[in-house]
């Protein structure tokens, strides 16, 4: 259904993505996973022309995506963002059917569809149809955002870190919900996340993206049992969380690159860093011939963001 052919993306001198070749089948639940800044969101946004690749082509049903009419393409694609992005001025009913409204579907039909979708996520339409988003909890909002993406019965649904802002319990419920909906409706879902647990739980197949390259594509079992390289192995190591990885940390903005420092210590792993940083409030270290500097406050902030977020 979707075919990325040697896709690349450059912003000026910066290479975001390079030589991406992916095949996504119809009805598949496909997860793009990787640390932040790896380029996975850019890959997703290419599917509804929010981003145009600077190299290569993407085919949707054997037709180049850039040849589709932008508006038609988007109206027939579901999209769920990280925050629910419900329009605060519209009722849930109107929010859910906004794409149908654009397509010129009559009021009664839209209403019926909204009610049907609300029931599908166990929100009683009698209670909720006329409510505004501000009257909902975070989890309820995200459920509405999910069914909004299904309103036009699209063949393709794009989800960008859709559950990352939810606490673990809600997150699990939302994951169950989307799995259930996928079972029933069988749309193709492309799901972006930085959380490998989520990726393993949701994906029929998973593509691991890192530093602009696709590291490995496969089913969760394949990836767990035969990681293609060290990065994939570390990333999916069930013993430690994905962010317990020096390379992952260095992708973020918490450490700063510096020129050579006299007392920089050569580090091998994330655990080395933790040991060293217990002795000093600020550490200068080298990793793969590059020198960095990080404070323990910055590391705590990193851990709070990556691990403790609810």
């Amino acid at each position, binding site marked *: 259904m979707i075919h990325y052919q040697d896709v690349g993306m450059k912003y000026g001198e910066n290479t975001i993505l390079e030589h991406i070749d992916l095949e996504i089948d119809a009805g598949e639940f496909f997860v793009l996973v990787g640390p932040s800044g790896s380029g996975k969101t850019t890959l997703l946004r290419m599917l509804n022309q*929010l981003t145009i690749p600077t190299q290569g082509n993407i085919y949707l049903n054997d037709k180049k995506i850039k040849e589709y009419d932008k508006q038609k393409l988007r109206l027939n694609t579901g999209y769920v963002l990280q925050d629910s992005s419900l*329009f605060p001025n519209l009722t849930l009913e109107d929010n859910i059917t906004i794409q149908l*409204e654009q397509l010129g579907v009559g009021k009664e039909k839209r209403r019926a569809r909204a009610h049907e979708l609300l029931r599908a996520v166990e929100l009683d339409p009698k209670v909720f149809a006329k409510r505004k988003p501000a009257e909902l909890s975070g989890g309820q909002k995200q459920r509405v955002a999910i069914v909004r993406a299904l309103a036009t019965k699209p063949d393709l649904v794009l989800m960008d870190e859709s559950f990352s802002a939810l606490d673990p319990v809600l997150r699990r419920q939302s994951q169950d919900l989307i799995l259930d909906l996928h079972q029933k409706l069988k749309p193709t879902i492309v799901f972006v996340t930085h959380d490998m647990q989520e990726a393993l739980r949701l994906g029929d197949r998973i593509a691991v993206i890192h530093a602009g390259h696709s590291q490995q594509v496969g089913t969760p079992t394949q990836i767990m049992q035969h990681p293609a390289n060290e990065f994939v192995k570390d990333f999916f190591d069930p013993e430690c969380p994905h962010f317990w990885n020096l390379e992952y940390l260095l992708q973020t903005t918490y450490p700063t690159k510096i020129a050579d420092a006299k007392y920089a210590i050569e580090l091998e792993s994330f655990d080395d860093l933790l040991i060293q940083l217990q002795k000093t409030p600020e550490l200068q270290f080298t990793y793969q011939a590059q020198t960095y500097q990080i404070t323990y406050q910055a590391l705590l902030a990193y851990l709070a963001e990556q691990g403790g977020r609810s």
Partner: protein
Amino acid sequence: MAKLFETLSVQRTEILQALGQHLTISLISLVIAILIAVPLAISLRDRPFWGEAGLQVAGIIQTIPSLALLGLLIPLVGIGTLPAVIALTLYAIMPIYQNTYAGLKNVDPNLKEAAQAFGLSRWKQLQRLEFPLALPLILSGIRIALVMVIGTATLAAFIGAGGLGSYIMLGIQQNNNDYLLIGGILSAALAFICSGLLKFIGKNSRRIYATLALLALLGAGVGGVRVYETLQPKPVKVVIAGKLGSEPEILMNMYKELITQADPKAEVTLKPNFGGTTFLFKALQKGQVDIYPEFTGTVLEALVDYDQKTPGDPKKTYTLAQKQLLKQYDLRYLKPMAYQNGYDLAVTKEFSQKYNVTKLSDLARVNDKVHAGFDPDFSNQEDGYLGLKQAYNLDFGKISVMEPALRYQAIAQKKVNLVDGYTTDPQVRQYDLVVLEDDKNFFPPYQGAPLMNEKFANDNPKIVQSLEKLAGKITTKEMQEMNYEVSVKHQKASVVAHKYLVEHGLLK
């Protein structure tokens, strides 16, 4: 305070009319400003360069002082409602544009991107997301504009657009605090009420849509009536204006009654307290005013090119004025009424009887008994006391120069026994004064007569005929009495005018 309420009740209809004018000018300007500012801000919302440029331009317009802006507009579009509406619209654009622009800019970019990603068209994005979210800010911009426009609209009176400002202008001119209070308090109250109303309407979208529907209905209604009117055969439209004060207003009302008697279908509009001499004269030449009463003396001294001394004989003065107006400005000056409204000297009745003084030439005998109260202009002008001294051989014992408004107070309280004034001043009647006869015709004659364009006169012979009935009518005493009724007793000018016309058989 009691006087204020008296003025309020006597002038009820006039005040309501001014209030209506004020509200109309303000609302029209506001609606036009909304129609300009909101679409402009919408179309510039994604073009930051032009959007910011728009903010700058609107800001610059805002800094032009309102009176200066009104003045600048006079040579371009003349006087009256049009320049007032233009100026007020220009002022109202800024806050509406600024708030609309800010409101649209403030919409969460995530939501905008979501709307794009859903494939919504530009129009749909605006209609369902951006505009509703910006609406509270837009409405607050409109409220700011409304309050500002209602406040600034008081200045519109200075260019003849009427409204509550005319009471403020009149109050300043006549030193009448009641008028000042009426103009000031009412415009403040109007701003307050309108702003509250808008706030109420802005509370929820149902009220907003109901109001919009109501306005549309109203607009359609007014439009329909206008169309109907233009399809009807057109009645003669006559605009009569006058200078400040009660006397011109009484005369205008007489003109109106006489004209409508001759042509009941004529549509006569009165614009009392329209402005000063030159202002009115210009308005007449531009055709914004059809008729206004002017004095023969004023014509020769201020309006036409005439460098000799104004003759003392009233008849000569009129003939000269009439000929020069026709020659220089192509204006028709109808025959004057009887009364004179020139400078005069007036004394208390007591003084007149005690020294047997009734004429100016009698004063020479009692020079040292006179304690005069003069207005500053009169005391040092050639056509005032300086010339008078020579003509009648005067040299008063004591002269106090004081504000014009205080002169009559002073003579009423016996602080002085002689004052300068105008022959038809109501205070002559109010304080029972004796106007001394100008037996050597020193003061130039000031006789009132209707002034109009020659073309208007030729097109409307019936109107000319009806106005000429006043020629030679109304004595100085009668005018004094009528001025007294209106400005001291607070009778309506229209009532007083009607009474006179009926009593003198001029109305059937």
